[in-house]
């Protein structure tokens, strides 16, 4: 590297050319880097604006991506605070990616456990009208870290409940003790019966009652067999009843014949009654005549009594 001053200079034309090449290379590198960075920053993209309103923009940074289905479709250009204390996140969305945003799109701001914040867009109905340039939307905030205190409180409550459940004098422990007693009784000589009735004497009584019931059922079974024979046997009730019904049918036939005869008699009686009615009409004349004769006899007796010397004095004599 050590060089003599200009007196010992190598061929200048060649060096100047090489130096010019190096300069051109540096210029190209810097210009290329600038163009690439401008391209990476979206300087050559036609974009539209989307304004998201959120109460707390913590974690949102300029340059952050807005993703749709995991693909970045926009980047945060500016974050500002409005007069009413709401954060305005201004996002540039390139026109070619803006087709994923619709009027019905929903925007969320999620914060992970490690502080990684993500802005996401969801478009359920892609047939809706496209989102207009400069549209303002509210952001739904899903904060995983905000859930932690509540989760911890719930966990603490759960642990205390578990502690209470698993304590020596807890209900669960007593219940488990009772279950153990029950299982021991189940394993005992009387098994589940002894467990249900609680003592040996009652269990014995129940077994005895069951034995008796079995014997009774055997007897009832015999009785039923006999009743069956008496009811449905050759000389049973049912065949006899059938014969009685046949006889009853015959009796009914006789009765029907008798009734027909009675009808004839009644017809005769009707004729006789007509005759009697005629006779009754003659009787009225006869009675009038009898009455007349009786009145004459009465007058005659009165005349006799008046003329008779031993007639009674009907007059009353006063003192």
């Amino acid at each position, binding site marked *: *590297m*050590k*060089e003599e*001053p*200009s007196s010992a*200079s*190598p061929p*200048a034309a060649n*060096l*100047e050319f*090489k*130096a*010019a090449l*190096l*300069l051109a*290379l*540096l210029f190209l*590198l*810097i210009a*290329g*880097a600038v163009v*690439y*960075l401008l*391209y*990476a*920053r*979206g300087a050559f993209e036609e974009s539209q604006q989307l304004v998201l309103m959120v109460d707390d923009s913590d974690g949102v940074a*300029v*340059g*952050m*991506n807005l993703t749709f289905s995991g693909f*970045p479709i926009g*980047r945060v250009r500016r974050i500002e605070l409005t007069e009413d204390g709401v954060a305005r996140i201004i996002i540039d969305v390139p026109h070619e990616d803006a087709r994923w945003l619709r009027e019905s799109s929903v925007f969320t701001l999620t914060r992970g456990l*490690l502080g990684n914040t993500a802005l996401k867009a969801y478009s359920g109905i892609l047939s809706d009208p496209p989102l207009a340039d400069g549209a303002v939307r509210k952001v739904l905030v899903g904060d995983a870290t905000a859930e932690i205190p509540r989760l911890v409180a719930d966990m603490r409550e759960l642990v205390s409940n578990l502690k209470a459940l698993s304590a020596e004098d807890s209900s669960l422990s007593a219940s488990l003790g009772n279950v153990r007693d029950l299982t021991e009784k189940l394993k005992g000589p009387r098994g589940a019966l002894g467990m249900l009735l609680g003592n040996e004497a009652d269990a014995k009584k129940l077994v005895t009652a069951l034995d008796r019931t079995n014997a009774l059922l055997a007897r009832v079974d015999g009785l039923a067999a006999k009743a069956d024979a008496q009811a449905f046997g050759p000389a049973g009730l049912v065949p006899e009843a059938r014969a009685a019904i046949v006889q009853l049918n015959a009796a009914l036939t006789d009765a029907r014949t008798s009734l027909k005869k009675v009808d004839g008699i009644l017809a005769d009686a009707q004729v006789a009654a007509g005759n009697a009615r005629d006779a009754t009409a003659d009787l009225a004349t006869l009675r009038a005549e009898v009455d007349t004769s009786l009145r004459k006899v009465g007058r005659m007796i009165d005349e006799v009594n008046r003329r008779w010397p031993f007639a009674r004095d009907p007059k009353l004599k006063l003192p």
Partner: protein
Amino acid sequence: MRGRVPARCGAPYDSGMNSLLSSRGPLPDLGRSTLTWFAGWWRIIHFGALILVLALSPSSYAGPNRSALARHVYLGTAPILLWFIVLSSLISLVIIRIVVVTAVSYGLSQYALEMVVRVLVLELIPLTAAVFVALGCALPNAEDIAGMRTRGEYDALAQQGVDPLRHEVLPRVASAMFSVLMLAAVSCVVTAVLAYVSIYGFTLGAFAGYTRTFGQVFNPAVSMIFALKSFFFGLAVALIPVASVLYDRPRGRMRMSVELQSLIRLFLALLLVEVASLVGNYY
């Protein structure tokens, strides 16, 4: 200007400042050394202003000056360019691998690329390029100037009517600065390509996502800080060693050579620029 420059850049500061600083008297040693230190910085700043004026003057690029500039630019950059690309590629590959494997093991692979870009392209590559140029080009250039002064060639040029500052110093300063920018630019591009290939493999499918991440890292403020940092790295590497050999004198009590003083000043300047860029980027 041609006749006055050597007198302005050497003698007045040496006589005035050093007569003040060498006087034994009321100033204690600590105060004197501090004053010497700040005086050295002031000389460097003044020298930088002179060089800037010369660099902006069209006459500096005419005739023999242009040949000298071209020679120094080429000889200061080309020999170390290939080596630096190889070295920075190896270091970058190792660091990319470490970052990617660590990120994947923690389930944070989506941040691996951003971290690689920030750590390597933004911070390490420009600093490494500056240190590499300082050791490979700027310090030998300063040694050349010191040798010329020791041999009297520097003053002889001035006596011949040739401005040594324009003819000998400016090309070396410009070549060192160019070298820093060139090495940083080339190795940043190489590292960016290596990062892409290491993470995604030989496919173009991830180029859109890669570009987007690159764009997110290089926002306007970060880009400006990166450009300024590279510029000031180059300035520090180009100016401080040459200015030190022109103006500093060996400190007898501390037994510190001019080259060592320039190296300390250089690393301090690089550190300050790096800290300032970190503060600008992350605070």
